[in-house]
């Protein structure tokens, strides 16, 4: 029997919407992360208009974080059609950008696996798009379905890791549950999240999930299967980031 004492400490924020007017706002707090957290997760909408200048501002600002940084993109990062270039620019700055991938981080307190994907709209029970009708409607719905498939690919990658991660976390921009959407008008929930993301998270045995996108939502919730979820959109958490301690699982040898 092997076990590691304590918890992995995960800092997380989403929806920073970086542009020139926000330069210098996050760096002082990020410089305090070392010793407080093992990793920083950023849940999409790194930029406001999806431009390369804003992506560079994000990379420069978040270079102040003295822990590994893992991000997914959000819908704002796609707005100018430069999502691939933004991802590459941010990767060159040493930040992991996940879209259907998993990343493993060995920390003093254990091995962290993060599966990440942006996600997409689709909705939840009773308020869900159907893959039916017009070509445009089917394309919208299929993109939501595919986005959950990408998250599953991320967990598949973690499944193949040897040794296995001690803690498995899902990182998305769109919400995997309605429980963190409370505060948002129910009419727009289908544009804020996707029940298939929650299904993937529950099926994967994730320990924790973080997302953003729902600026008027609630911080704390769970998937239908009981996985803890936190909405870390900056307007929700009202700080530079949150820090969550995740108990490291005890693994039979």
């Amino acid at each position, binding site marked *: 029997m092997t076990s590691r004492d304590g*918890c992995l*400490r995960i800092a997380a924020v989403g929806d920073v*919407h970086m542009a020139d*007017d*926000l330069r210098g*706002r*996050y760096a002082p*707090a990020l410089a*305090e992360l070392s010793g*407080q957290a093992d990793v920083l997760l950023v849940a999409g909408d790194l930029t*406001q*208009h999806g431009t390369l200048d804003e992506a560079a501002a994000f990379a420069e600002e978040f270079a102040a974080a003295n822990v590994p940084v893992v991000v997914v993109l959000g819908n*704002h990062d796609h*707005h100018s059609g430069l999502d691939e270039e933004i991802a590459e620019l941010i990767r060159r700055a040493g930040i992991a950008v996940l879209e259907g991938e998993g990343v493993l981080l060995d920390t003093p307190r254990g091995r962290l696996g993060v599966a990440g994907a942006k996600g997409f709209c689709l909705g939840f029970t009773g308020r869900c798009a159907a893959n039916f009708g017009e070509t445009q409607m089917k394309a919208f719905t299929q993109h939501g379905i595919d986005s959950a498939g990408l998250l599953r690919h991320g967990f598949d990658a973690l499944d193949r890791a040897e040794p296995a991660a001690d803690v498995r976390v899902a990182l998305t921009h769109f919400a995997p549950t309605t429980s963190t959407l409370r505060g948002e008008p129910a009419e727009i929930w289908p544009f804020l999240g996707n029940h298939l993301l929650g299904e993937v998270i529950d099926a994967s045995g994730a*320990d*924790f999930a973080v997302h953003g996108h729902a*600026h*008027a939502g609630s911080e704390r919730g769970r998937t239908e299967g009981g996985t*803890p979820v936190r909405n870390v959109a*900056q*307007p929700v*958490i*009202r*700080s*530079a*980031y*949150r*820090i*969550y*301690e*995740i*108990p490291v699982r005890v693994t039979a040898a």
Partner: protein
Amino acid sequence: MSEHTNQRVEQAIANDARTHELGVRIECIDRRVLVRGQVASRERRAAVLTVVREQLPEAEIVDHLRLSDATQPPSRTETIE
């Protein structure tokens, strides 16, 4: 003014390259327009109000926008159970 007007102005705020703010809500009451939501900086608040003014030049704008500019480190850590 009407729901159509509210929607038209909200769409303008979402689509305008100066703003791209999706969380701003507009409510027109007689000749007054209430502007609600959160923005990240004073510059973004000014940009939103500019777009509203362009859309409704005759209206009296009531600014209820809030700044989500609290970016201090958190005061506590939460243990996930």
